[in-house]
């Protein structure tokens, strides 16, 4: 190869070293990335499952075990399998006696700067939202991000009324955000001063998601009551981990 290109060496370097360098470095880099991916994959899956587990127990006070269900095309719940994910999958939480405490549902919507993802717990017995946690958001630090940690705001979600209307298909009153301190109905969320848009966004996400899920979960709660190989608090973590 070198001799074939010898006459042009001054202007064009031999091709072989170029191939050798690019292909060689590409090969080494590819091997490195794949090895790291294989090594960290299970750990990452375990972290994700643990984070989800923690969030589910946070929004469903009293739950010590969880199982995931996916809404099938036939309109009933099946135990979630590998690869099932929201929006069709929900997580049922059970207390120590194996009774259904509630269902944790993931929902998302537009916030002030970017999509906000939340997980909220719906308890069919009390027909209320009993907890809410923000899974990811990029709201303004110091203002909008109070939706994640402001205790007064989070207190709204200890018992947020989402009871069904008489027809069982829609909610009696839609969830809505009101100006801070002017909450009068159990279905209203006391907003945060200085973070009106973020508070409204949370209310809109819950309004939309609850209108869709609450009638369904309430009607089908019998299917969720059995506890198929639920994962208990503290015990191993994973759906996806190997």
């Amino acid at each position: 190869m070198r001799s074939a290109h010898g006459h042009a060496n001054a202007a064009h370097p031999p091709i072989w070293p170029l191939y050798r360098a690019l292909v060689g470095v590409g090969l080494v880099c590819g091997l490195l990335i794949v090895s790291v991916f294989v090594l960290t994959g299970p750990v990452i899956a375990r972290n994700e499952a643990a984070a989800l587990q923690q969030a589910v127990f946070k929004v469903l006070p009293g739950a010590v075990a969880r199982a995931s269900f996916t809404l099938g095309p036939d309109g009933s719940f099946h135990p979630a399998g590998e690869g099932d994910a929201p929006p069709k999958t929900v997580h049922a939480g059970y207390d120590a006696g194996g009774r259904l405490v509630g269902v944790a549902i993931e929902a998302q919507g537009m916030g002030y700067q970017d999509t906000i993802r939340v997980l909220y717990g719906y308890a069919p017995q009390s027909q209320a939202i009993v907890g809410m946690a923000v899974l990811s958001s990029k709201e303004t630090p110091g203002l909008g991000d109070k939706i994640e940690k402001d205790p007064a705001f989070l207190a709204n979600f200890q018992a947020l009324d989402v009871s069904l209307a008489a027809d069982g298909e829609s909610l009696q009153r839609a969830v809505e955000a009101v100006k801070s301190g002017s909450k009068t109905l159990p279905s209203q969320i006391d907003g945060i001063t200085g973070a009106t848009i973020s508070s409204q966004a949370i209310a809109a996400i819950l309004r939309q998601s609850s209108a869709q899920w609450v009638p369904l979960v309430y009607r089908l709660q019998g299917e969720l009551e059995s506890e198929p190989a639920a994962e208990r608090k503290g015990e191993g973590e994973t759906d996806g981990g190997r």
Partner: protein
Amino acid sequence: MAGADRNAAGAMSTDDFIKGLWRENPVFVQVLGMCPVLAVSNSAVNALAMGLATTFVLVLSNTLVSALRQFIPRQVRIATFILIIATFVTVVDYLIQAISLELHRALGAFISLIVVNCLILGRAEAFASKNTVARSVLDGLGMGAGFTLGLLCLGGAREILGNGSLFGLALFPAAYQPWIVMILPSGGFFTLALWLLLFNHLKLRRQMRESPGNSPVQEATP
């Protein structure tokens, strides 16, 4: 290769490490990699994590580039360097996800953007491709430490002023009204400007002391 090593400029010295910390500090003197410096320095923890991730990529890419420097023809060097850097950034991305998902979420897109941090390609091209592995590792460590230090200076100041805390520990009584603008993007520019002012002031004073005859204004022009 051994012959080339011996010919490479000078033996390894502590200066390879020290210069990155102060005299050629990537943030305050070379003003390189400003995108992550401004974006991820809103808290001390984020700044530290970003600094360490960049140091990791910098040291490993410097090592590999320097080890392969005889093997890489000049014509394809940039493509090869970018490939090497992108590989280590991907590695760091997975490692951070394995260490803490929360941290990964906080650093967001900026981990992937380490690829285009001009500091790393700059060191590969300007130093590692011309020097021995040992010296390149020292250079990477020094530049990485300097970058981390710069990020921490910004992140610490911004977190103290904007959130009243440092590394998440509250420093002031509850009555303290945090200066929220400091943790917003504009606060990054303010803080960086103040630190650059300080560094340039120190540099100018040293130059005036070293050569009292010269006018400081001429000296200061880069």
